[in-house]
Every structure is written in C-alpha cells, then in structure tokens.
C-alpha cells in the first residue's frame, strides 16, 4: 500500500475546454487545484486522493485524474 500511496496521480487539464468556472477548485476536498487566470492549474498534486470529484462536477469535460 505504501508504494501505491507514493505514486502520484496524473491530472490532465484540457486548456481548450476549460472555461475557468472554478467548480473543481471550490469542491476539491483537499485543495489540490487553483485558478490561474481563467484556467485551472494543479497546485498540490501530492494532496490528491483521486476522488474524481473534480471530473464528476466539471461541466466542460475538461479535467481528468489518472492513477
């Protein structure tokens, strides 16, 4: 389990699709994401729990979290 926890997830943001609504930033339980101007950016990848809430609530099909 320790190894799996060390492995960081990969967060893919589609810059063309993202409209900067901040929904993913506001609902991320561990504050992984931030707004950088009008597009979302990853700020603290180590805190990501791969809960997928950002993807589930993104209205623009713009963010995906891979293991």
């Amino acid at each position, binding site marked *: 389990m320790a190894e799996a926890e060390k492995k960081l997830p990969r967060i893919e943001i589609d810059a063309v699709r993202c409209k900067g609504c901040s*929904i993913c930033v506001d609902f991320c339980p561990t504050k992984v994401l931030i707004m950088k101007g009008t597009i979302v950016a990853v700020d603290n990848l180590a805190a990501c729990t*791969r809960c997928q809430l950002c993807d589930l*609530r993104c209205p623009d099909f713009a963010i995906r979290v891979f293991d």
Partner: protein
Amino acid sequence: MAVPAAKQRLSVPFDYDKYLRPGKLPHIWCPGCGHGIVLKSLLRAIDKIGWEKDNLCMVSGIGCSSRTTGYVDCNTVHSLHGRAFAFATGIKFSKPELNTIVISGDGDAMAIGGNHFIHLCRRNIDITVLVYSNAIYGMTGGQYSPTTPAGSYATTSRYGNIEPPFDPCEMAKAAGATFVARSTAYHTKELEKILLQALEHKGTSVVDIIDSCPIYYGRMNKFKSASHMMNGLEKDGTITVAQAAKLTPEEIGGRQLRGILHQAERPEYCENYDNIIVKQATATKGA
C-alpha cells in the same frame, strides 16, 4: 499490488468522448452552467445500461438544455420549442425498439411544451424525460419561468417574482407518468443512479434535475459563483426522501425532495397498440 476494487474503479476516469460527436467541444454553455454536469451523469447512465448509440434517440426542444442533442453521438432531433414531447412520441410510436430520451428545460417542458408534456405522461409511452430545471429562460436572456420561486429575481421580475412556481414532479405524477424522480447536478453520482433507474423503467419516466444557471439566475439572485449557487440551491436547497421522512414539515422547510417520488405500473402505450394489432389480425384470420 492489492488496491481495493472500489478505489481501483474510481481512479479510472470515464471516457465521455466515445459518446460525443468529435470536434464539438468546447460546448456553447456558459462557464459554470450545470447542463454539462447533467449531461455527464446521463452519459454514464447510458453506458451502464449498455445501449448502443444506433439504438438510442435523443430529442430536444429549444433552450440552453436543448443544445445537448448537438453534442451526443447518437440519433438526435433538435426540434421546436416545447415540441420535443410530440416529436419523441411519434418517433417512439413508429419505432418502439428505439430507446428514446427527451432533453428539456423548465421553460420548454412546463410552459411552451406544457400541454405536450402532460399528454406524453398520460399515455405512459416508454420515454425518459429529463427536465433541466434552472428556474430561468437562459437562452433568451434570463426571463422568469414557471419554476422560478416566488420572490426571486429575473430580468422580467426586477421586484421579485409574484407567481407561485410549478412542481414538475407533481405535474408529471398527476398527468400519469409512472416513474417520477428528482436529483441535482451537484449530486452527480446520485443523479447517475436515478437516471439509470429512469432509463430502465418501462413507461414514461420523468426526472426533474435542479441545476444552476450562474449567468442569469445566479447573478440576478446574488450568488457569487457557480459553486456558491450549487451549494445554496442544489446541496442545501434539497433533501432526500429518506431524510425527509424523519423530519416534520417545518423542519423540511422549503427544501425540495430528492430521490424517487413516484413509481407505478400501468400498461405502456406502444404495447397497448401492438396488442390491438395482434388481436385484430387474429380475429381477421379466424373469420
């Protein structure tokens, strides 16, 4: 590496692109509009039920919600304002094997298409209706709709709406729909589950989905952001049927109920019609 099954499943993102027409995104909806979230829940439910895209037909009317049909890679009809119900009835009636879904909004379904909506429910034809309820006419500039709460603001109710709103679920139930449920864009997994049950249901199923129009309803009613609105209206503004069962009406207050609100069994329209054909054919043969 032994990762628990649930965790393993969660960490694989769903591939929405296989249900979307290539090159159509970014979509037309405003930043933070709930319609995209609802569409994603619907696509996951369709994937779960396993319908082939060729056997699926989505019909919409006019409005922001109705733009959905432009994005989904299946048989689609973007019809007239309020008339998606009539178009869908015709499609289902002539091709009962097509899994048919109507995408509508509160204005499209409750006002302009109100009459078509009730008669679709009355017939109990095997169609699933999604009402994207954001309490506003978004596409035409933020006019109040039949579901805008009394007292709230729209471009046509600058001093507060003086009309009482309709409840699309009560309307569907009274008209004869045999599956009636409500969820929200915020509760995206719950919504997916309810949509799956609605798709599985034989007969007319109606799902009222509270989602947010941050651009008109949100701005007019002093919501600071899309998430502020989702928290206020969708999360705090609703309560599950199970939770509500333990509370008094005073404790429930103005919160809207989520979950399956009505389910009944009644003969389905296309089957009824088929029965007549079979009966008449056998009668003629016998004569």
